């Protein structure tokens, strides 16, 4: 066993870990040692080939197909230097004031979240794409929304030099996406923060972590690990968890630390999603250009958000209901397909939670509440209306039976798309906005941490990632993750003297 000593150890190098690393980097100049441990590899620019299967297996946990306990939903979350910021589309929205107010976390106000979010928007070059960069898939969404009586809004994006490969979700092959792997982590490393990849934290103990560093697999992507493969006992004055909404609670649960709050792992939310597909008569530009440039927000009114999207052939096939000739015929129409992502703004309930199995692996328990099903069906109806208003000849709606709706039936979408057809196990549901499990609050009975990520009753242990969300954020979460991570890092800096 190799022993190492640091002042701060950050577990995870995604949106949260990268933010914390950069925020704590000035401590290095004061003689402090800061270490970031990341389970996945450090990818090289040439690793991002855009090939669906090859990339999915490298950049996502379980190839993007991590299943919930009852097998009714797949969860996608990234692994590697930059975490999920490597594989998101860079959509950069500030958490709505309504949501932060409803979270009701003492010591957390919207103005603070907004101020920090805006700082990271500047750092990450967030801006709106020009008209000449918008493809037909997005343009048809805007036109369809307008004709159907909805209001589409443009996503601010964190890209620089985007070539419109449309491959964002497999890792940008042009290094254009300004995730933490491009901005915060390199900046932290330049200031002396150490980042060790292929380093899996097995367990956390009193001011220490047990780490296994794995070698680079033969033929695998990424660089060799920064430390020699083997087991390490790393001690630290502060341990900051930034491993995401599944792995942070799971790591704490399997570590068996005494005195952890009983709500650990509870309140998992994830914006359950459908990918909806519609066919047009003519080919459209869909697999070129930024895939997610517009959205339509009905979170406050009906509990859902619609976003433009464009996925790869297998993901598209998987997310359509059914099989056989109707399914295959739609796949053959790929150049004519328009897509919309439907996201339900689910609410935290105690039974939706993260636990660990006998091997210490995370298990996500998720039950679809009637409200979530209602929202997904309402969102599917709205999407169908938008598709048809944009000129689609047929729409694939998971919660219709049969799922294909022809244009002549457009006036009947409210009847054809119905909750009784939302049959789990038959329809595909996936999620990539994973939140909760170490929710913030005021005390042990209602939460895991305070508003600054301090774990109740364990002063040396902090949480900085999306697991802090006491409820879903109802928009794409990464800017809010960065804002909360920035707060957690600020608390570490201010508490540092008392943590010796």
């Amino acid at each position, binding site marked *: *066993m190799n022993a190492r000593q640091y002042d701060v150890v950050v577990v995870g190098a995604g949106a949260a870990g990268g933010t914390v690393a950069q925020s704590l980097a000035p401590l290095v100049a004061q003689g402090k040692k800061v270490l970031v441990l990341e389970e996945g590899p450090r990818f090289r620019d040439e690793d*991002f080939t*855009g*090939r*669906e*299967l090859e990339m999915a*297996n490298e950049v996502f946990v*379980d*190839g993007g*197909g991590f299943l919930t306990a*009852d*097998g*009714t939903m797949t969860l996608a979350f990234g692994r590697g230097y930059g975490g999920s910021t490597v594989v998101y589309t860079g959509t950069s929205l500030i958490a709505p004031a309504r949501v932060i107010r409803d979270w009701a976390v003492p010591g957390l106000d919207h103005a603070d979240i907004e101020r920090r979010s805006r700082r990271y928007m500047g750092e990450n070059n967030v801006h709106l794409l020009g008209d000449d*960069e918008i493809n037909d898939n997005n343009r048809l969404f805007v036109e369809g929304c307008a004709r159907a009586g909805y209001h589409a809004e443009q996503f601010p994006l964190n890209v620089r030099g*985007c*070539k*419109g*490969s*449309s*491959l964002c979700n497999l890792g940008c*092959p*042009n290094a254009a996406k300004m995730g933490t792997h491009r901005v915060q982590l390199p900046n932290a490393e330049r200031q002396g923060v150490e980042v060790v990849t292929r380093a*899996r934290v*097995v*367990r956390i*103990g*009193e001011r*220490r972590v*047990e780490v296994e560093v794995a070698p680079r697999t033969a033929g695998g992507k990424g660089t060799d690990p920064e430390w020699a493969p083997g*087991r390490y*006992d790393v001690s630290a004055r502060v341990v900051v968890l930034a491993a995401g909404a599944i792995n942070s609670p799971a790591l704490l649960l*399997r570590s068996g630390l005494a005195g952890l709050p009983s709500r650990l792992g509870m309140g998992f939310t994830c914006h359950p999603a459908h990918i909806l597909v519609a066919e047009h008569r003519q*080919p459209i*530009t869909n*697999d*070129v*250009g930024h895939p997610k440039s517009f959205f339509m927000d009905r979170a406050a009114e009906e509990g859902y958000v619609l976003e433009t999207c464009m996925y*790869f*052939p*297998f993901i*598209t*096939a*998987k997310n359509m209901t*059914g*099989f*056989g*000739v109707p399914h*295959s015929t739609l*796949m*053959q129409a*790929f*150049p004519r397909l328009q897509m919309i992502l439907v996201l339900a703004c689910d609410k935290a309930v105690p039974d939706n939670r993260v636990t660990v199995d006998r*091997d*210490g*692996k995370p298990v996500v328990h998720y039950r679809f509440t009637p409200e979530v099903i209602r929202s997904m069906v309402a969102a599917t109806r709205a999407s169908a209306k938008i598709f048809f208003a944009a000129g689609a000849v047929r729409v694939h709606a998971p919660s219709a039976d049969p799922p294909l709706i022809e244009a002549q039936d457009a006036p009947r979408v409210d009847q054809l798309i119905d909750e009784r057809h939302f*049959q*789990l*196990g*038959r329809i*595909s549901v996936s999620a990539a906005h994973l939140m909760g499990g170490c929710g913030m609050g005021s005390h042990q009975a209602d939460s895991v941490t305070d508003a600054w990520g301090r774990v109740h009753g364990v002063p040396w242990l902090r949480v900085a990632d999306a697991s802090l969300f006491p409820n879903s954020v109802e928009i794409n979460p990464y800017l809010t993750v960065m804002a909360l991570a920035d707060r957690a890092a600020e608390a570490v800096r201010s508490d540092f003297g008392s943590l010796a």
Partner: protein
Amino acid sequence: MGWRMESTVRYTWPAVSANLLAPVRPAFRALAEVFVPETAAASPATWDRLEAVVESALAGRPPAIRRQVILFIRVLNGLARLRTGRALTGLDLPRRTALLEGLSKAPVLLVRRGVWGLRTLVQMGYYTQPEVQAAIGYRATAAGWEARR
């Protein structure tokens, strides 16, 4: 110090034979033709690639999942025999399709999930093949707009 460096956490699974589908290959192919009709005319190379992807995906999953998938294929084959007197390979495509469509809407979640899982594995094996992606008109490249304008 009361904490000892020892772990019971296990994340890796034992090595698995690459020939995982061998015991059920005819039934698997009969099912695959239902899920993706184009496979009925697929070349041996396409089948090989499809099955390699499925076996690789299964190899990365816990042993219990692997056993469940193989068992489920066997159960489907047995069910076909029970209902029609013929194994899956002896049924024409419409009858295989009808059987699976019925099961995909079964009242028992486990059955629906099983069909969904098998369907997804076959789709993974088929639609991730570069030749198939090109054939359906998928053209995304790193060059993005430069390659289209």
